């Protein structure tokens, strides 16, 4: 019986060899992945052991760690300066989770990233923990403050604003309202943190949602920038092509698509595209959507970044702005042309549209981290601006820029902004909920040779408009940018 016995012995040993290989695979090569798995709550409990590096905006410190020397690994406390103002950017570290840049740059902030280990090889040898690196954001503190206070003072419910550097895609301001103090959730005591989370989660509108990137709103007439882009790119239009601005009866229901931005008087006859745009004639753009067809608009919207999330930093991305891909009926297609009903967009998405137009058609990847510097001042990460598309030609972009200047000169925003060095497009979308309007202003400044692109959305009562509610905030942001 020894012959089969030997084979069974080999089989038995083989089982153990397989186990050894598997354990090597898990603990040898999968360990990092398991340690940072989002479901793994250990990493959050251990984070108080690390001297996390600060998060900066220019010279302003947004987040820093203080040594409190607590026991049981609670050596450091994380603090946030003006947590309510900067919550969309920094995010937080709590005993349960991490968000925002605290999450995206976690390894560099807490010193566990391999790039830091290289810089601290001697410390590692003597068992010292690597010191966290400093994350320098692209945020302009004054612009951020202007954006947040502007929205807070104006909106009756929620609001968001994003300002982007036209040439690089660097995010200069990213404000969200309502907000919350990140210090409240960064407490060591799990029970306390849990209570704060519970109370925040109960509030409506949700203060922890980032309205600048993670929520979408009906873009209203600001979507006409995309209609115009599709029209001009089709080759059948330029800014001076006469358009039909007479009353539009919707093809299915026969109802009228009202012109309602206050410039109804200008919306008749056949004004050139630029004038229809400046006066924001729904009749013109509803008709344009029907003429261009859904596929053309969908393609153009997708080129600008609709229908997929946009990644800002590792693991930090925007909500998906939507232009419908399912075939629309005639009424809905016409309404999609004026950014109503089926179309939704995040402020970040519309800011990217403005940035592309202002940058001669070149769409830049939005980003928040300018550079990451180790404690020994060596630069670990340096942001490199990256073009992620060219939805429209430089020529088309130039024409739309001119159309957006016309809005301020003699169009829907002229009453508020005339004479100021800014261009943009207003948008006012009825939500149908409690008479609330989504009030947009999307544009860039200065008018010539633009540097800052922006999108601001606030919510106002019936009768409010993008021009009255959001355009002044955009102007304040632009003035604040250094």
């Amino acid at each position, binding site marked *: 019986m*020894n012959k089969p016995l030997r084979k069974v012995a080999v089989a038995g040993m083989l089982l153990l060899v397989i*186990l050894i290989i598997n354990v090597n695979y898990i603990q040898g090569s999968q360990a990092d992945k*398991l*340690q940072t798995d989002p479901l793994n709550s250990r990493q959050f409990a251990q984070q108080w052991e690390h001297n996390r590096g600060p998060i900066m905006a220019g010279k302003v410190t947004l987040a820093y760690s203080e040594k409190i020397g607590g026991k049981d690994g609670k050596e450091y406390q994380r603090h946030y300066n003006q947590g309510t103002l900067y919550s969309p950017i920094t995010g937080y570290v709590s005993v349960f989770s991490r968000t925002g840049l605290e999450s995206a740059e976690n390894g560099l902030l807490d010193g566990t990233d391999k790039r830091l280990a290289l810089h601290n090889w001697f410390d590692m040898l003597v068992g010292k923990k690597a010191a966290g690196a400093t994350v320098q954001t692209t945020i302009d503190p004054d612009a951020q403050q202007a954006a947040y206070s502007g929205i807070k003072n104006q909106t009756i419910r929620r609001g968001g604003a994003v300002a982007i550097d036209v040439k690089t895609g660097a995010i200069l301001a990213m404000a969200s309202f309502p907000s919350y103090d990140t210090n409240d959730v960064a407490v060591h005591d799990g*029970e306390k943190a849990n209570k704060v989370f519970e109370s925040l989660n109960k509030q409506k509108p949700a203060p922890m949602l980032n309205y600048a990137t993670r929520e979408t709103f009906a873009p209203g007439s600001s979507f006409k920038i995309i209609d115009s882009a599709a029209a001009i790119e089709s080759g059948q239009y330029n800014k001076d092509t006469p358009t039909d601005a007479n009353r539009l009866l919707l093809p299915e229901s026969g109802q009228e698509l009202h012109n309602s931005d206050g410039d109804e008087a200008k919306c008749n006859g056949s004004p050139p595209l630029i004038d229809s745009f400046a006066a924001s004639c729904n009749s013109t753009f509803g008709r344009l959507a029907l003429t261009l067809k859904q596929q053309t608009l969908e393609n153009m919207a997708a080129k600008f970044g609709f229908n997929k999330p946009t990644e800002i930093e590792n693991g930090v991305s925007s909500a998906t702005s939507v232009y419908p891909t399912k075939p629309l009926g005639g009424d809905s297609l016409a309404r999609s042309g004026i950014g109503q009903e089926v179309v939704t967009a995040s402020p970040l998405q519309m800011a990217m549209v403005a940035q592309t137009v202002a940058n001669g058609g070149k769409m830049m990847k939005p980003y928040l981290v300018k550079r990451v510097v180790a404690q020994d001042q060596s630069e670990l990460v340096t942001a490199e601006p990256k073009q992620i598309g060219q939805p429209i030609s430089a020529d088309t972009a130039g024409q739309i820029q001119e159309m957006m200047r016309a809005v301020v000169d003699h169009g829907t925003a002229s009453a508020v902004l005339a004479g100021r060095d800014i261009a943009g497009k207003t948008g006012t979308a009825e939500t149908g909920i409690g008479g609330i309007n989504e009030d947009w202003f999307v544009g860039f400044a200065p008018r010539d040779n633009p540097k800052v692109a922006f999108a601001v959305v606030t919510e106002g009562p019936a009768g409010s408009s993008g021009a009255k509610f959001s355009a002044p905030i955009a102007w304040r942001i632009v003035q604040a940018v250094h």
Partner: protein
Amino acid sequence: MTSAAAEPEVQIATRPRRSAQLAMLIFAMVITIAGFAQVGLARDGSLPTGMYGYGAGLGVLVAISYVVVARFAPYADPLLLPLAVFLNGIGLAMIYRLDLGTSRDVQLARAQGKNPTGLWASAPNQLMWTALSIAAFAAVIVLLREIKVLQRYMYTIGAVGLFFLALPGFLPSSISGSLGAKIWIRLGPFSIQPSEFSKLALVAFFAGYLVNKRQALSIVGKKIGPLNLPRARDLGPILVIWVLTLGVLALENDFGTAILFFGLFVSMLYIATERFMWVAIGGLLLAFASALTPFIPHVQQRINIWLDPKSYFDGGCQVGNKIINQIQTVAACHAKGGTYIADSGQLMRGLFSLGQGGVLGTGLGQGEPWRTPYSFSDFIFTSFGEELGLTGAMVILIVYALIVQRGMKAALATKDNFAKLFAGGVSFVFALQVFVIVGGVTRLIPLTGLTTPFLAQGGSSLLANWILIALLIRISDTARRPAPQPIQDEGMTQVVRTQ
């Protein structure tokens, strides 16, 4: 190796290896006590008071076991006892480390509402069971001088084994049930897991039966395709027992043990008959059984969890075609209009534990293995993986491999067919058991509850495994004992080896 009749010669050292055994026992004890010391130093910065008590207790037990083996089984394999002591010792240190009564970090975690699993880890209990087990070990060595005695009572042993295996299935769940499986017999403060002992009993029965029938089993009865089946009257009893056993285990929801028994029958039939056909038939039956798994919810859950653990983390709830995780209760899932499927929290936490350990581990007493439910029993391997790292985990697996190898060596060395089959059977089953539980907690295969031999907290398993080691020591002692000297001394005789 050309003919089946000429068995290959096995090299046997026929002299006592007492000092080697002693040296290795001391080594195993040093590691154990160092383990206790490290737990204390890491946690409180001082040597734990428990170290002396547990060290002394274990030391006395080990001394007794050494004396017994040296006196009653002097020719036994010197490695088996130290390997068992090593595993038992570090297991005890880990349970001590996880015990709420002795672990400050576990107490703290509990105070913070973190739900550590040390609540049921009990080092005093485990030490008591170690004492009982080593007493049983000594008793077996002293009383059972010939393994063949078991062969004489094979039917009784088999019947008793089967009876106790089946008993929990017929007892009310309040006595036998825990975590979905009915495998316990609980009487007051004591609970026994009879399958641990039935495993040994059935190996003894099969070894006896197969030794008697191995010639008959080779006679071809019927031919079905390429398979030459033995006569029904030879195969029948085995099949009956086999079906009975697996039926009982299915009834008790104990699929880990079912796999074990299945492997046991197939491997022993193969060893006894020397016909590979049995492995092929075993493979076919296994394929058939796995085709049935979708109809057994308990098994299907385990497979779902294994394939996609993230979806089921802390409770997977199927709503429409989507599985939402972190739905912790069945009620919460129903409230969402879904069907509660399973929870992979334990498996994932075990993996996180291993990941935390990495290559070198956090150090004994410095990790957080108590985050994994049952970190001191079913998941004790991941607790070691966390605190001792890949390095420690490999040491444990290699020690298991050594036990299997020494058992197989005893099987090869012994001339008695019953002992050969018995030793081969238990050694293979030991390897299979380690594979099923360690493979389960490391997500190599679907997780089924089996004990981790010698390490996991639990009296039945410890007792059964110590008896197993005693039997292997007895078999290897018999095998290595020099043949009795001829009574008539014919003076100097030149020994000529013929082969």
